[in-house]
């Protein structure tokens, strides 16, 4: 009898089955407290907006919100810049979204359970930005990742 053709005992089958069920809940990890971490929030900090000037960098303060009752370590946050709009909300085609660059989160940040943390992303309005980019608003879409430390 070859040792490598041995059958799988009932005990081993149980291990495989339990493993499958353990994997099962993973897709709902974002909503299940205990099996995963809820999606954390990323938003601008009210009252801390910086007006951008061509050729200069400024802080874009964002607030990370942790809805879990334990700390999380936010490892990455990035921002995608959208097409700008003027004060009436109208598109400004002559001002490209590429006029603004937002740097990624410089270092991981711990957010307390049921808490918030304010951090700054460095934002740049590039030199040589067209005059059409005066007094416009660039929408940002934030995404990030976190782990339980």
């Amino acid at each position, binding site marked *: 009898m070859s040792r490598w053709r*041995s059958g799988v005992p009932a005990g081993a089958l149980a291990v495989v089955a339990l493993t499958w069920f353990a994997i099962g809940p993973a897709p709902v990890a974002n909503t299940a407290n205990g099996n995963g971490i809820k999606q954390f929030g990323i938003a601008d900090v009210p009252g801390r907006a910086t007006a951008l000037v061509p050729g*200069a960098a400024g802080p*874009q303060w*964002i607030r990370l919100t942790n809805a879990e009752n334990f700390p999380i370590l936010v490892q990455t946050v990035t921002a995608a810049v959208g097409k700008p709009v003027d004060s009436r909300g109208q598109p400004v085609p002559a001002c490209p979204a590429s006029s603004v660059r937002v740097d990624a989160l410089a270092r991981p940040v711990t957010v307390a359970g049921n808490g918030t943390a304010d951090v700054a992303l460095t934002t740049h309005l590039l030199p040589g930005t067209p*005059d059409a980019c005066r*007094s416009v608003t660039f929408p*940002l879409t934030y995404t990030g990742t976190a782990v339980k430390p």
Partner: protein
Amino acid sequence: MRKISKRSAIVLGAAGVVAVAGVAYAAWSSSGAGTGSVSSTTSVNSAITPASSGSVLYPGGGTDFTVSIDNPNAYPVVVTSISAGSSNVVNGCAAGTVTSAVPASTTGTIAAHGTGTYTLHATMNSDAADACKGQTFVLPLTATLASNAS
């Protein structure tokens, strides 16, 4: 029923550990999302004002004079150009009797809410009329500025 060999048991056990470890990692990671915005500032036009008039002019003569350019903005700027100037009509003295050339350079940065001084050169036409004696000439000028923030 055949018994599982010791080697097979070790392999299965290891596989189980790997699977469980993978689940643990997935369960304790998360993602974040949200929206925000950034806004650009506006710009406020600068003003050019006389700073010094230089020496008195006579037909065919010239003098340096200076102008001040302010920066009402909250960021530093540089003057990228100053136009040529041509005098207005004054008390019967024809327009264009006194002119100033485009300056060769306009170096220097004007700080936020600061002022810069620039030297220009004016000349009086050689055929200036007698009506131009003892007059003060106003030369409209325009300048272009750009942000010099860093």
